[in-house]
């Protein structure tokens, strides 16, 4: 059995070496390290302002699941670099992540994270626990700390359906890692302050997935209203926010048609009351 491993260096195939770990990132680190982002690079000048930045992501739980939504704008300084960027990614069948900060770093991280979760699932024949998934993402964020200090900051928001609790769970992070589990709802990115304020007034316990999707679209609109880096729904180009729902049936991204239905409903109401729904005072 051992002889095929004792071949000259060029002929060995380390794909079949048992590394004892089910982590894809660890395997790539030893097999083809050049594929991983170089976390320890030192940039001559910080380039944070010159690369596109992704902005606002919101997430909220509902009865039996969680909804995540993101606007579609990416900015480089004062320039809108992309109007239809996608910032909410399916991680596996029961979880998703949204990214804020440097778009390229975030997209790469989401791609690696998806493979990481799937790799474990296939190697071990079971899915990671929700806490396990959240912790793994924290390690990846911490690995990016060196680049974050040079301006390439990326901060994700992680949401998953937990079958043990039959409920949605939300985790947030900072540049050095995390995770911080959030109760009910959370927002990240430049418009997050405004979105969180909006969610505080609009969130209802035990709402349906349908109502919660509407709530998040309202919150994103409020964020776009006050934050120049967050994009509102683009009615003329028909670019709508991305809304993803995760419940016991798994992950599903709402179609453009469904989202445009929510948006039109909201815009119609805002023609009468531009600041959106008014929360009762008492």
């Amino acid at each position, binding site marked *: *059995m051992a*002889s*095929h491993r004792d071949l000259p260096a060029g002929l060995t*195939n380390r*794909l*079949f070496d*048992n590394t004892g770990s089910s982590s*894809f990132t660890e*395997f*790539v680190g030893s*097999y*083809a390290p050049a*594929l991983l982002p170089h976390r320890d690079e030192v940039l001559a000048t910080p380039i944070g302002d010159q690369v596109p930045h992704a902005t606002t992501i919101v997430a909220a739980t509902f009865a039996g699941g969680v909804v995540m939504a993101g606007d579609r704008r990416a900015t480089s300084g004062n320039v809108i670099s992309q109007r239809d960027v996608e910032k909410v990614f*399916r991680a596996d*069948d029961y979880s998703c992540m949204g990214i804020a900060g440097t778009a390229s770093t975030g997209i790469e991280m989401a*791609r*690696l994270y998806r*493979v990481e979760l*799937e*790799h474990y699932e*296939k*190697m071990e*024949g079971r899915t990671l626990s929700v806490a396990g998934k959240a912790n793994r993402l924290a390690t990846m964020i911490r690995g990016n700390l060196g680049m974050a200090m040079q301006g390439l900051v990326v901060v994700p928001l992680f949401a998953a359906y937990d079958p043990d609790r039959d409920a949605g769970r939300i985790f947030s992070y900072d540049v050095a890692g995390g995770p911080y589990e959030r109760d009910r709802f959370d927002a990240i990115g430049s418009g997050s302050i405004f979105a969180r304020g909006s969610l505080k007034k609009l969130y209802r316990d035990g709402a349906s997935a349908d109502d919660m999707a509407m709530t998040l679209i309202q919150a994103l609109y409020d964020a776009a209203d006050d934050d120049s880096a967050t994009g509102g729904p683009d009615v003329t180009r028909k670019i709508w926010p991305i809304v993803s729902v995760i419940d016991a049936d798994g992950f599903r991204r709402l179609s453009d048609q469904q989202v445009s239905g929510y948006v039109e409903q909201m815009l119609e109401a805002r023609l009468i009351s531009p600041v959106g729904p008014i929360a009762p005072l008492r």
Partner: protein
Amino acid sequence: MSMPFGYASPEQIMRDKADYARKGIARGRSVVVLQYADGILFVAPNPSRALHKISEIYDRIGFAAVGRYNEFEELRLGGIRYADINGYTYDRSDVTGRGLANLYASNLGRIFTESIKSLEVEVVVAEVGDTPDGDAIYRLTFDGSVFDEHGFAAMGGQAEAVATRLKERYREAMSLAEALEVALAALTEPGGERPPVSQLEVAVLDRNREHRKFLRLTGPRLERLISATPAASAPEAPEAPTAPEAGSGEKPPPTGPDGDFDDGSSPL
């Protein structure tokens, strides 16, 4: 010129290795892989809940194996690493069943020629396409030979007898329930008893699924599928008398993969 003590000709060594491997593979139960209308079906009688014979490799690629568990498990893990690293380097659509079959073939072939003991495994790599024309089933034997199977493949145990029964019953574009019925009939000896649902490992590569096509069928879902077959018990009786005649004589059951294997007799 005297022979050194303990000399064995290369032909003899290869023959011994092949015999050894074939005996090991024939000891286990058979596994059946076949095409149906919406994709590819894997069926394996397997009493263990923990040690799988069928597994997902990538979005469109499934894996089934017979023989020694620790040996094919190593192949399976290596295949997952291969698929994930290629999908991450390029794009998810750039991982193909053909590439994986070639990797396995070279690895199996190298171990067969260079190690004292060859691997006692036989493997199927199946890939589901967007249409039935895009489906592929590759069967790999312990010596690294690759067979591009059309429609169905059987391996392990009494592989040849199972393949014969499978060939008799297989039709193109069957429904999932029909295909499962065909697989179970092929896995059951004439007049024998079918394995209970709790001892079946069943999975599909369903081309209509999003993202990942691989899905294990277990529990109530599998029971419903099996009982949904109109011919679940009916064809058993009429077929039993015809089957012994197909057996033709008292020839001992074949014990290994059919097709050519390298017995050292070829000069190439």
